């Protein structure tokens, strides 16, 4: 249970020297083939992946909170079912991703501890509050949309288990994105108060969504190495640009304004120009001073600690079961 990141290094060395293993690894990356759990990999590659996949898993789990707040209050049974199912999908994504991380020799419980102790991060976007039901739609549209831009290229990530998890996750995220947008379309056809709720939510989530792509390329310390290893396939700024280009026509169709006076089409580049996000704010949120950082971690900690006796009971029962099975004293109901 208490395996650490530094244990359980996959060892398929088969007698080859470090240099030869490195050459084989480099050749696999160069041929755009996948690294699999039993393959030799450089320690830095493994650590970078653990950091990225764990951070991604944590984001799915913490990301359940801002929207999960609204399941009990969703204003129609149809929206309630859609939102309940979406938040459930996020728990499922967290599970796939923790499983992918476990193929690198870490343990889910250990990663959860690191999250709770603040030693591993999650996406900064989830540290903003959800103030109205329109936020649920805007999160679907922007946050799931940004996640898709970030993650579709990861379906070709060089690490096999991560890439395969991303295929499934991206399909579900794209469904969530369309559901969010459809909800906003419905609200925009509703009352004046509903249209105001949507615009207000757009105003609050636009800049934090642009920050989801991370710091600008000239200030992104881990990017270059991750791109060389093909863990990551496009730069932060390139992905941010794609998101803006994809979202602007959707905003027009919806009838909302994006809160950026510098946003305009640049015919020469064939792309949109847009303003600069407040990078100081991003750094503050990443460092723990966002509006909801403490609250999010506290909820995760409380759930984990309150559930400890349940997990211990499950382990104790399983041990007793196998003891009884061994002594032929198995009883009635399978559990």
């Amino acid at each position, binding site marked *: 249970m208490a395996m650490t990141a530094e244990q359980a290094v996959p060892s398929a060395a088969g007698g080859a020297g470090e240099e030869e293993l490195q050459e084989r690894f480099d050749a696999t990356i160069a041929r755009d083939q996948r690294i699999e759990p039993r393959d030799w990999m450089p320690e830095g590659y493994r650590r970078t992946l653990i950091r990225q996949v764990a951070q991604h898993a944590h984001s799915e*789990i913490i990301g359940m*909170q801002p929207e*999960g707040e609204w*399941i*009990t*209050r*969703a*204003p*129609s*049974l*149809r*929206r309630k*079912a859609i939102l*309940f*199912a979406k*938040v*459930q999908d996020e*728990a*499922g994504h*967290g*599970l796939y991703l*923790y499983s992918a991380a476990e193929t690198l020799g870490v343990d889910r419980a250990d990663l959860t501890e690191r999250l709770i102790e603040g030693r591993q991060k999650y996406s900064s976007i989830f540290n903003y509050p959800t103030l109205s*039901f329109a936020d649920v739609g805007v999160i679907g549209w922007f946050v799931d949309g940004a996640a*898709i831009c970030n993650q*579709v*290229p990861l*379906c*070709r990530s060089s690490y096999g288990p991560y890439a395969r998890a991303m*295929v499934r996750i*991206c*399909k*579900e995220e794209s*469904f969530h994105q369309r559901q969010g947008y459809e*909800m906003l379309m*419905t*609200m925009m056809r*509703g*009352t004046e*108060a*509903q249209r105001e709720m949507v615009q207000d939510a757009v105003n609050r989530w636009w800049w934090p969504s642009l920050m989801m792509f991370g710091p600008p390329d000239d200030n992104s310390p881990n990017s270059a190495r991750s791109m060389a290893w093909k863990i990551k*396939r496009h730069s932060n700024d390139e992905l941010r640009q*794609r998101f803006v280009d994809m979202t602007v026509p959707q905003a027009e169709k919806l009838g909302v304004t994006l809160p950026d006076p510098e946003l305009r089409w640049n015919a020469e580049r064939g792309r949109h120009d847009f303003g600069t996000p407040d990078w100081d704010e991003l750094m503050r949120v990443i460092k723990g001073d966002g509006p909801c950082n403490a609250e999010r971690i506290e*909820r995760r900690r409380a*759930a984990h600690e*309150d*559930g*400890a*006796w*349940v*997990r*211990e*009971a*499950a*382990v*104790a*029962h399983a041990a*007793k079961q196998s003891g009884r099975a061994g002594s032929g004293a198995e009883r009635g*109901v*399978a*559990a």
Partner: protein
Amino acid sequence: MSDDHVYAALAEGHEDDTRWAYGTGFEDPLHGVDTAVPAGVDGAELAALCLELGDDALVSAQRLAEWTTRAPELEEEVALANIGLDLLGQARLLYARAGQVDGTGRGEDAYAYFRDAGDFRNVTLAELPNGDFAFSTARLLVLSSWRLAHLQALTASPDPVLRAVAAKGVKELTYHRQYAAEWVVRLGDGTEESHRRMRAGLRQVGAYLGELFEAHDAREEVLAVLGQVADTAGLPVPEAVPGDGGAGRLGRHTEHLAPLLEELQSVARAHPGATW
């Protein structure tokens, strides 16, 4: 997979894969079912039964939703949400049927969002706060065993819609009961603490059995399940306390229902005339 255009990329490749959580694999339980009220069936009585069962399901789903982000393990997040979604789906079908047969033509949301606590007919066990995971799973075992027996009986209802809804529900509740039974056994057998908590959970739930059996007499089925599960878990079988006439079914609720509904209905009631 090319990622030059993210949406185009998403559409590639996996068209034949039916394992995705959306798009495929769903069946409309009412497909091809005649929705006219059959001769000899009293519409008002049928609507009342649909509301009772719909309210049980909606209130239970609301309590299950409260576990979201608070469950002891991620697998339990997924499972409890599954069960909550099944019950929410049952509530929607039952409310829709009530609106068809009570003469008002109301939709599902009218019943969920625009009735007050005194108009709800759910059994009071469903509305109690979640308590700990032991109480929640003990309650789930009892409610799902009882509802399963009730819906099994309704698969022979003279109303074809209710028959179809019941048939769908039977499959779902069989899983809910199995999930709950596994946890009652794990916790009863697990550690001293979990045993103590599950014993307390079952005792608490036992006090509501009388009300359940007044509402639908599934005494035999429910006590058989409870007996088997409690025995496997090394726990005493909870005793059924005689009911006082089925308080929830008469609209007499605990102090816990009104705040539950206030939360559930808050956004819908704050925006009259809105469409969602």
